């Protein structure tokens, strides 16, 4: 670790993994509720488990992005972090605010939480992924601004590289687009239109810049490939991400009461959205093949390659499956959506954060790579989580195809609940895969504590 302040990332990563575990525990609860409908009802109704699951996901990924930035920016900028005390303070504020919010969801009926947090003053609660009380959202903005200030000042007074500038752009975009979560009009069409300015422009927009820059950073470190090559690729990847993703937002504007031209614009541009992910796969494979060194941290390389592949499959391929308007007409709002969503989020964002943690954690603990045993366990956890996620996705895809046929396409379409009963087998299989995923996560956590023979680092 070249700069002491990089070590601040450690607390962020630990919080991220802890919240990830919480996310998956609630995911497993929801998977159970899909098949045993009143499981934990009425103490934890499905919608509460869901908001805990999705909000924990977003918060832990944000901890992951911030930790990653605190780790890589000082090194890229070739100076210590501008204000380490601020990063530590914000960590605790974000963690406590996040924990209180989750506890709020669990301990108090949502309507009551809205009342307690004075939602009526500026009503922003009750939308998907944006369930946080308005005061929490304001807290998030403050934390984000402090974070951007810290990282921004570090970069601006240090060396500006393509990697840290692209990362900064992505993170700034994340903060700016989050502001749309405060705009909640009574007009349902306007509500939905601008909601996507947070969600789509995040995960199919600025988050791709964050992901690509993190991946580029780790690949430079573990392959030794020339920075110039990697930075050129990075520009091409993010160019394609925005060229396809900005107007690709239109694939959310097919059926919400907006003009018909979005069916054409959204279909054509979103069909291009797999391109940046394909390029990331090509890029990752290429630099690993042309590597100039064999880094002792094998799991980090595996996570990096896995990220590119799974992001391509989940976001690119599965996204393409249902992005064209004529197909989406039948699949909109079905298990097809859930299938894509899970693999996309895991492949692109979960895995890139785990890649960074895999690379950085040993260094922050004083060695270039974890011991042999820990590495093997970590690689096992990679395969368990990744393969089980593929199965989760395949099972939900199966469920979705059947659901689409029976509920949307057939001559005599059947009611929602009737169809849900008919696809229950897929949900049981999904839950089984989900439990394997959870076991992979337990193994992953264990890998940080496993003891074994150290890896010999050969210099030169």
């Amino acid at each position, binding site marked *: 670790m070249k700069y002491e302040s990089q070590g601040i990332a450690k607390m962020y990563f630990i919080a991220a993994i802890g919240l990830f575990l919480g996310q998956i525990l609630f995911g497993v609860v929801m998977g159970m*509720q*899909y098949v*045993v*409908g*009143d499981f934990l*009802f*009425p103490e934890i*109704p*499905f*919608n*509460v488990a*869901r*908001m805990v699951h999705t909000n924990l996901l977003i918060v832990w990924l944000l901890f992951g992005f911030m930790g990653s930035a605190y780790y890589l920016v000082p090194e890229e900028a070739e100076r210590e972090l501008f204000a380490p005390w601020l990063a530590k303070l914000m960590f605790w504020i974000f963690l406590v605010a996040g924990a209180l919010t989750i506890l709020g969801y669990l301990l108090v009926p*949502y*309507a009551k939480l*809205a009342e307690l947090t004075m939602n009526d003053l500026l*009503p922003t*609660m*009750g939308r*998907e992924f944006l*369930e946080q009380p308005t005061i929490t959202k304001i807290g998030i903005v403050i934390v984000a601004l402090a974070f951007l200030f810290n990282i921004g000042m570090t970069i601006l007074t240090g060396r500006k590289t393509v990697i840290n500038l692209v990362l900064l752009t992505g993170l700034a975009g994340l903060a700016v687009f989050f502001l749309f979560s405060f705009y*909640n009009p*009574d*007009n*349902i*069409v*306007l509500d*939905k*239109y601008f909601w996507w300015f947070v969600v789509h422009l995040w995960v199919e927009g600025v988050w791709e810049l964050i992901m690509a820059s993190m991946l580029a950073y780790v690949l430079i470190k573990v392959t030794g490939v020339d920075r*110039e090559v990697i930075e*050129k690729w990075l*520009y*091409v990847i*993010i*160019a394609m991400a*925005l*060229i396809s993703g*900005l*107007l690709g*937002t239109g694939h959310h*504007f*097919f*059926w*919400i*009461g*907006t*003009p018909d031209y*979005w069916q054409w*614009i959204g279909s054509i541009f979103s069909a291009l959205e797999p391109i940046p992910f394909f390029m990331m796969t090509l890029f990752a494979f290429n630099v690993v093949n042309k590597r100039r060194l064999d880094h002792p941290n094998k799991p980090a390389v595996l996570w990096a390659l896995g990220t590119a592949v799974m992001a391509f499959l989940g976001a690119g391929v599965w996204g393409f499956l249902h992005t064209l308007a004529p197909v989406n*007409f039948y699949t*909109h*709002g*079905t298990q097809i959506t859930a299938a894509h969503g899970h693999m996309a989020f895991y492949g692109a964002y979960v895995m890139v954060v785990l890649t960074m943690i895999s690379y950085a954690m040993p260094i922050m603990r004083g060695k270039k790579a974890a011991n042999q045993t820990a590495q093997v366990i970590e690689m096992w956890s990679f395969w368990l989580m990744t393969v089980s996620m593929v199965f989760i996705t395949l099972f939900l895809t199966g469920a979705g195809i059947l659901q689409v046929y029976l*509920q*949307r396409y057939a001559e005599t*379409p059947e*009611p*929602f*609940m009737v169809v*849900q009963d008919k696809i229950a087998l897929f949900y049981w299989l999904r839950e089984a895969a989900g439990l394997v995923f959870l076991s992979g996560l337990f193994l992953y956590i264990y890998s940080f504590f496993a003891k074994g023979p150290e890896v010999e680092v050969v210099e030169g």
Partner: protein
Amino acid sequence: MRETFTKGMARNIYYGGAVFFFLVLIGLTVDTVKSLPQTDNRENLTEQVAAGKRLWEINNCIGCHTLLGEGAYFAPELGNVYTRFGESTEAIKAFIKYRPVDGIEGRRSMPQFNLSDEELEELAQFLKYVDGVTIARDWPPNIQG
């Protein structure tokens, strides 16, 4: 590989592409917002409907249901429930009002929200308003949502 395609060119494509398409997105947004009165049923966006939307939000209905295909996939689409229930706000109100507190054994269960009659009316009017939005190709494909 030949160096005809430089990093500088890549950077310019990124800057140019991002700015251009962002401007197009803004332009199309302006156009979309201007055309909404033709489809968004705002004539029926009364204070009662707005109150209903607020109830929809603070009870987190989207946490189980979809509305115009967006939301959670645990419970039925409600964008066309007004039509599906025979164009009856009374039927919608009754359904919400009579949810059993402890759910239905073994089945996916909807909470009892203890809404007043006035609130039930607001929520039903909100769902009727959403049903009245004109959607491309008349999505959803059929009455089941």
